[in-house]
C-alpha cells in the first residue's frame, strides 16, 4: 500500500475544550498519531496553596461545570482524610445521591447532545429540532430535572454550596424528599426511551484490549464514592497509593500528562466501571445492558456511550433506593453544620495529608492535599479522568488508523477518529490538556 494521509482537525466539535488529532501516514505506514492537548494549564493546585482546607471544595468545584459535584465530593473526601473526619452514614448517602445526579446529568448531555448527532447522521444537535423534536425535548427534560434535584440537594445547579467538610449546611426537608422522589420517578419513561433510542444506534465495530481502571470494593454496591483503585488486570491499591496507579508522565505534544499502569495505557470512565463492577449494577441496569448488547469485558471504546446509558438506569434506581432509605430512617437535622470555615474550631486541625478518590462521570478522579498546623494547604494534586484517558485514546488511534486505511476515505477516517475521541466524553478544559485532527498521507 502506498497511500499518504495528512489529516489535521483543527477544531474538533462536540468535545469540551480544545485539542487536535494529528495523523500522518506515509506510503501506507503510520508515522505519527497524536492527540494533542493544546489548552493552557489552569494551575488549580497552585491556587489552592495557602488557602484553608475548608475552602478547597468551593475552589476545586470550579475546575469543571459539569463534574463540579464530583470535584466537590472528592475534595471533601481528601480533606476529611487529611483531618481525620469520618462522615456520618446520612452524609454519605446524600453525597451518593448527589453524585448520581451529576452522573445522570452528564451522561444525558453526552448521549444526546454530543453523540446522538453522529448516530442520527447530522452535524450537530440543533437540526434535530426539525427531525427529532421529541428526542430534543426529552434530553432537555432530563437535564433540567437532574439539575433541579441537584439544586434542592446542595443549593445550586452546579458548584455545590451546602456540602462541606463533615456534612451539609442545609439538609433536605420532608417536602424536599417528596419532591425529589417524584421528579426522579417522573424521569423513568424518558430513561427507558433513552435505552430504546440507543438500541437503534449502530456504533463502529472496533476493538482493542486495554486495562480498565476504576474504584473497586468488597461491598455489594456499585462503587462510585467508596473503595480502592483497581484494574481489570488485577491491580488493587489503596487510594492513598494513587500515584502508583496513575504513573503520570509528560509528552511533548500535550499539555495534559499521560498515564499508564500495567500496560502502555489504561482507560477510565463508564466502560471501565462496567467492566470492573457490572455484577453490582441494579437488575434494571443489567437488563438494559443485555438489551443493548453490552457484555463484560467490552473492549470497544465506542461502547462507552452505551455503558453511560446503562449507568443512567443504575443511577436512577439507586437514587430512588437511597431516597427511600433516607426517608425511612428519617433525617437527623442535628447534623446540620453552621456555615463557615471552621472558625469555632468544631473540627480539630493539625498538619496532615489525605487523598480522595471518586468516580466522576468520565472516570476515577483523585485529589490529594497536604496541610500545615493551621489548616492551610501547602501541597495539592488533582488527577483528572480525561488526563488518564488521553494516552489510551492515542493507543486506540494507533490501532484504528491502520485498520481503516484499506477501505475508508480520509473524510470517513476523520469522522471515525472524531467519534472515537467523543466516545470517551473528554473534558479537555478539565484535563487542561486536549482536540483538533490532522491527517498527513497514506
Amino acid at each position: 500500500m502506498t497511500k499518504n494521509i495528512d489529516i489535521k482537525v483543527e477544531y474538533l466539535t462536540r468535545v469540551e475544550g480544545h485539542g487536535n488529532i494529528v495523523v500522518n501516514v506515509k506510503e501506507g505506514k503510520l508515522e505519527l498519531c497524536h492527540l494533542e492537548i493544546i489548552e493552557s494549564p489552569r494551575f488549580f493546585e497552585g491556587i489552592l496553596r495557602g488557602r484553608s482546607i475548608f475552602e478547597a471544595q468551593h475552589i476545586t468545584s470550579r475546575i469543571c461545570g459539569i463534574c463540579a459535584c464530583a470535584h466537590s465530593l472528592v475534595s471533601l473526601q481528601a480533606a476529611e482524610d487529611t483531618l481525620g473526619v469520618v462522615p456520618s452514614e446520612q452524609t454519605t448517602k446524600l453525597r451518593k445521591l448527589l453524585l448520581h445526579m451529576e452522573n445522570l446529568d452528564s451522561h444525558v448531555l453526552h448521549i444526546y447532545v454530543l453523540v446522538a448527532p453522529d448516530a442520527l447522521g447530522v452535524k450537530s444537535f440543533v437540526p434535530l429540532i426539525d427531525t427529532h423534536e421529541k428526542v430534543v425535548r426529552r434530553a432537555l427534560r432530563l437535564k433540567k430535572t437532574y439539575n433541579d434535584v441537584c439544586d434542592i440537594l446542595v443549593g445550586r445547579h452546579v458548584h455545590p454550596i451546602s456540602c462541606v467538610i463533615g456534612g451539609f449546611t442545609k439538609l433536605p426537608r420532608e417536602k424536599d424528599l417528596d419532591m425529589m422522589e417524584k421528579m426522579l420517578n417522573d424521569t423513568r419513561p424518558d430513561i427507558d426511551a433513552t435505552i430504546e433510542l440507543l438500541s437503534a444506534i449502530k456504533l463502529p465495530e472496533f476493538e482493542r484490549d486495554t486495562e480498565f481502571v476504576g474504584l473497586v470494593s468488597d461491598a455489594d454496591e456499585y462503587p462510585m464514592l467508596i473503595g480502592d483503585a483497581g484494574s481489570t488486570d488485577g491491580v488493587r491499591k489503596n487510594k492513598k497509593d494513587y500515584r502508583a496507579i496513575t504513573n503520570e508522565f509528560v509528552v511533548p505534544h500535550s499539555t495534559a500528562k499521560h498515564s499508564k499502569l500495567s500496560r502502555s495505557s489504561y482507560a477510565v470512565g463508564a466502560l471501565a466501571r462496567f467492566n470492573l463492577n457490572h455484577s453490582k449494577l441494579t437488575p434494571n441496569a443489567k437488563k438494559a445492558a443485555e438489551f443493548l448488547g453490552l457484555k463484560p469485558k467490552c473492549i470497544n471504546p465506542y461502547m462507552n456511550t452505551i455503558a453511560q446509558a446503562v449507568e443512567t438506569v443504575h443511577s436512577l434506581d439507586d437514587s430512588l433506593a437511597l431516597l427511600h432509605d433516607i426517608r425511612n430512617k428519617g433525617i437527623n437535622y442535628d447534623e446540620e453544620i453552621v456555615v463557615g470555615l471552621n472558625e469555632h474550631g468544631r473540627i480539630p486541625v493539625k498538619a496532615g495529608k489525605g487523598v480522595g478518590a471518586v468516580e466522576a462521570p468520565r472516570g476515577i478522579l483523585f485529589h490529594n492535599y497536604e496541610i500545615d498546623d493551621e489548616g492551610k494547604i501547602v501541597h495539592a494534586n488533582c488527577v483528572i479522568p480525561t488526563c488518564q484517558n488521553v494516552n489510551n485514546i492515542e493507543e486506540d488511534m494507533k490501532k484504528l488508523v491502520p485498520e481503516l486505511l484499506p477501505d475508508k476515505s480520509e473524510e470517513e477516517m476523520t469522522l471515525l477518529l472524531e467519534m472515537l475521541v467523543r466516545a470517551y466524553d473528554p473534558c479537555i478544559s478539565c484535563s487542561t490538556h486536549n482536540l483538533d485532527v490532522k491527517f498527513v498521507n497514506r
Partner: protein
Amino acid sequence: MLSLLTDDVIGAITRSPSLLLITVGNDLRGDDGVGPYIAENLSPSRGDFFLIDAGGQPESILDSAEATGAREVIIIDAADFGGLPGEARLFGIDAIPETTMSTHIFPLPVIARLMEKDMGCRVRFLGIQAATFAFGAPLSEAVKKTADELLALRG
C-alpha cells in the same frame, strides 16, 4: 462617545407590546457579564415587559419563559461579530453558531427554537460586541455605556 444603538435596536426594545428580555452570560468573564449587569439593574416595575436572567444555565428557562405569555422574546448576550466594542445588533436564531463556548450546556439556538415553537412568537438575539472576555475583567467602558443606554430605554 457616540451612542452605538441603532434605530432598529431601540425600536425592538421600546416598541414591543409584550416583551420578554432574557439575559445570559458570565459576570466573571469581562464583557460576557453584560447580560447579568443588565438583569441586575433592570426592573420590570411598569409591568410592560418581563425579565429572566438565565445566567449560565439557559436550558432551565423554557418553562418560566412560556409562563410569561410574552409575545416577543429578545435574548441579550455579549457577542463577537466583528463590530465596534459596545455596538449592539439584532440577529435571528439562524445567525447564531450551533456550537457554544461550552459543551456543558445545551446550545442556545436549540433553546431559542423551542421557545419559538412553545410560545408562538419571534425570538431574536441582541448581541453586544464585546471588547474583552478576560477572566476577572470588569465590563469595558464601551459595553457598559451601551448597557446603560439600553437600561435607560426601559428604565
